[in-house]
């Protein structure tokens, strides 16, 4: 396998979906998503580690594929392929619908996140994926899902900002954001704890761990299983991949963050089991199963973080675990979707505003009412007041009156004589001062 072919494959795994996302290009294709997946499928089945450098791209980056990420690539290909079958209209005839484009954009982001070899490109592409997924949610007919999309949007923005800080910090520490060296350098730094907590909080926002999970039940409540799974394989699984990449697993022993992760993972699992499964309809079960997978993966991470030895034991199995679970999920979706192919999708129902939304709206509302431009509007306010106007008129009158007096012959000439006298007096005084 020579460099050119591998480079071509790697780039086209990203580039083809991106290209096809352009509406005129995919509009006439029968299965655009699956065509877009072809290079990625090829990559999955080539059993060699590939890598290319792209020094001109972003801050200088590369794309690569090794054993671990091959599993992630495999599951991505599989899941997206399956979801696309159910989620998209067969050949994208619907011109006025962004679904296919958004889907392909998320796909691009996902592939890129998997293949990225450094933090910046990972961040860039996963953000692309995140926003595109939100677009998919927002484009849904169901108001509840759109709401979920909006909430997730807020969380995603916060997550991105927090991860941005983590990234800046990582670069300040290591000067190089390549995943290959990042973990080692970070583990030697003395601001490790800060870094770990920022990364973990950031990804917690992204993957919907327990206290930040609100959008998931909302989305799951009325979504089709395929949509729900897309949410899992998209934002959530990518988030997990990100944690895996960014944490110095196996290098450090950090019991505190590790313990926190264990706890959060456990709570998430328990929450799903006790609060969701009980009420869930059958078709929501794959989604909740996916959340349990997340929880257990997070627990595994927590364990690995607190004990490096443990991680070196089973760390390599993590992708395989995720792949297996993904396979199970895919099968579940297929069966569920088929079984309810004739089932009805519940109509849009009116839902109350969430607290966040109402706060935001109130804030904007009051801001608009209170919004006085600093200088010009203050001035306008001033002038608009009658007092202000009268004040101005008094000044004007004073000036007019002054000029009127100055123009009077006798007054003006008297002033003139005064000036002569003052001049002579001044000259005398100056002379006296000199003497």
């Amino acid at each position, binding site marked *: 396998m020579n460099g050119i072919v591998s480079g071509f494959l790697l780039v086209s795994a990203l580039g083809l979906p991106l290209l096809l996302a352009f509406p005129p290009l995919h509009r006439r294709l029968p299965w655009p998503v699956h065509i877009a997946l072809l290079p990625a499928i090829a990559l999955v089945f080539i059993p060699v580690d590939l890598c290319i450098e792209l020094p001109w791209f972003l801050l200088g980056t590369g794309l690569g594929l090794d054993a671990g990420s091959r599993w992630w690539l495999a599951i991505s290909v599989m899941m997206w392929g399956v979801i696309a079958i159910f989620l998209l209209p067969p050949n994208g005839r619907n011109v006025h619908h962004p679904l296919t484009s958004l889907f392909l954009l998320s796909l691009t982001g996902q592939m890129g996140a998997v293949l990225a070899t450094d933090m910046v490109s990972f961040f860039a592409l996963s953000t692309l994926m995140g926003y595109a997924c939100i677009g998919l949610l927002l484009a849904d007919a169901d108001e509840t899902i759109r709401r979920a999309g909006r909430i997730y949007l807020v969380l995603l923005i916060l997550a991105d900002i927090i991860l941005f800080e983590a990234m800046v910090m990582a670069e300040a520490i290591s000067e190089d954001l390549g995943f290959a060296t990042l973990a080692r350098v970070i583990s030697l730094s003395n601001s490790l704890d800060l870094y770990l907590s920022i990364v973990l909080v950031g990804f917690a926002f992204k993957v919907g761990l327990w206290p930040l999970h609100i959008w998931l039940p909302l989305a799951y409540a009325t979504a089709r299983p395929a949509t729900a799974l897309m949410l899992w394989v998209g934002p959530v699984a990518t988030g997990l991949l990100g944690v895996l990449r960014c944490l110095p697993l196996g290098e450090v022993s950090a019991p505190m963050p590790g313990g926190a992760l264990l706890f959060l993972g456990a709570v998430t699992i328990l929450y799903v089991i006790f609060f969701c499964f009980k009420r869930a309809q059958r078709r929501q079960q794959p989604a909740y199963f996916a959340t349990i997978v997340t929880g257990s993966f997070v627990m595994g991470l927590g364990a690995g973080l607190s004990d490096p030895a443990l991680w070196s034991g089973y760390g390599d199995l993590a992708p395989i675990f995720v792949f297996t679970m993904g396979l199970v999920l895919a099968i579940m979706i297929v069966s569920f979707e088929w079984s309810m192919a004739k089932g009805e999708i519940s109509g849009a129902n009116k839902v109350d505003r969430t607290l966040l939304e109402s706060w935001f709206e109130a804030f904007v509302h009051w801001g608009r009412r209170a919004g006085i431009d600093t200088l010009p509007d203050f001035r306008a306010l001033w002038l608009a007041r009658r007092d202000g106007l009268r004040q101005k008129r008094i000044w004007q009158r004073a000036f007019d009156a002054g000029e009127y007096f100055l*123009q009077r012959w006798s007054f003006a000439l008297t002033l003139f004589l005064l000036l002569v006298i003052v001049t002579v007096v001044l000259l005398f005084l100056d002379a006296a001062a000199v003497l």
Partner: protein
Amino acid sequence: MNFPTGAGTDHCKRMKLLPMELILGEVPWIVVLIILPLTGGMACFLFPTISKSLGLLTSLAVISCVWGLGWQLEEDGAQRYAIGGWGAPLGIDLYADGLSLVMVAVAALVGLGISVYSSSYFRRDKANHFWPLWLFLCGALNALFLSSDIFNLYVTLELLGLTAVALVALADGSEALTSAMRYLLINLMGSLFYLLGVAFLYHSFGSLDIAILAQRVEPSPAVWAAVGLISAGLLLKTALFPMHFWLPAAHASAPAPVSALLSALVVKASFYILLRMWLEIFPIVGISFAQLLGLLGSAAVLWGGIQALRQTRLKLLVAYSTVSQLGYLFLAFPLGMSIAWKGALYMLLSHAVAKAAMFMAAGNILAAGGHDRIADLSSITQRLPLTLTAFSLAGISIMGLPPSGGFIAKWLLLEASIQSGQWWWGAILLLGGLLAAAYVFRVVSHVFTQAEATHEAREVPARMEWTALVLALVVIFLGVFASWPLAMMEIGSPFGGGS
């Protein structure tokens, strides 16, 4: 004209004098400059049918004489010429240095503009009166700028005043006549104050020649009285606040070219005398008087600016702007450094050109629309793009924004005020600029208002529009090629040392 800054460069030029240059060097341009317009004026008076072409020709000739004088000064430095071979103290001397040259040059330049403008402005009957008067005034101006005799200055001042009054009275109507009358009385009064001062000076030192007086003068009560009288008389004529009361009416009611003439040149003449005396004879004067002048100048800047803002008629606005701008000239007195004088002189120069352009533009607007109410300008101004361009460009200089002569002047004055530690004069300078911007844009903003044409506009001759524009462009060029005029001022170093 090209005036290299260094004085030593002319040596090699002298080696290869061409006949042409010989003539240039030999002709007594100083005298020609005075006699030419006077003769021209007489000729216009005698042959009214060709007065227009005679006038234009004379203006052109005057400009070329100034060029000749400039060449002479550049070659030989400051020039002194004894009329009829009778030198001072008994005879009358003419003297030209950088200061005079700049004044004569600006008078010639603006004068040419005014001549061109007037050649289209006046109808036959008025033109017959205008041309002789205007050429006499031109001669008086040149004589004034080139005299070195304080009594001769009185005579030229009177000649200037009388012709100016007659020109104001050219516009019929009670308003013009009233302001002409008032202007005449003020002029006479100012001149008499000046003359009384001259009498005291002569009595004390027995000479009328500025250079001789400069050597002999020493403090005494008679001198102080003379300084007081002379300054007061000249300040009255320069219309320094609060003695500006006669100016707006006279300048606003006169015909447009005459307004331009008065604002640009005539008020500057008395300022020139004051400046000349201050530099040569008055160094004995203490600082308080200079501070008083600065104070009055600042008051003029602010008061004139505010009054200009309050006006409802365009010509009055421009006239009050003159009051305000004249105030700047007096800020140089308390600063009293070489760059301050240069700044004031530059201000004078650019104000002369800019204000002439502005009054011409105002005249065009008046001619086109039949009125000059600022509130109703929109419909007229859009039909006179050239005129309004001229007004705006001149306005840039009035505001003191770059690139314009006004900016250079402001820069120099500001530099002087900071260097001498008297920053408050600089503050006045900046405040005056803000006020100027306010009143200039009050007019200019009408260009952009979309208004329906309410009444018929009369045609304005293209020559009148172009003259205003060319003068306005000159003032912009003064802001870009400042080194020439500045080098010109240096000839004979009228402001003392280099710094």
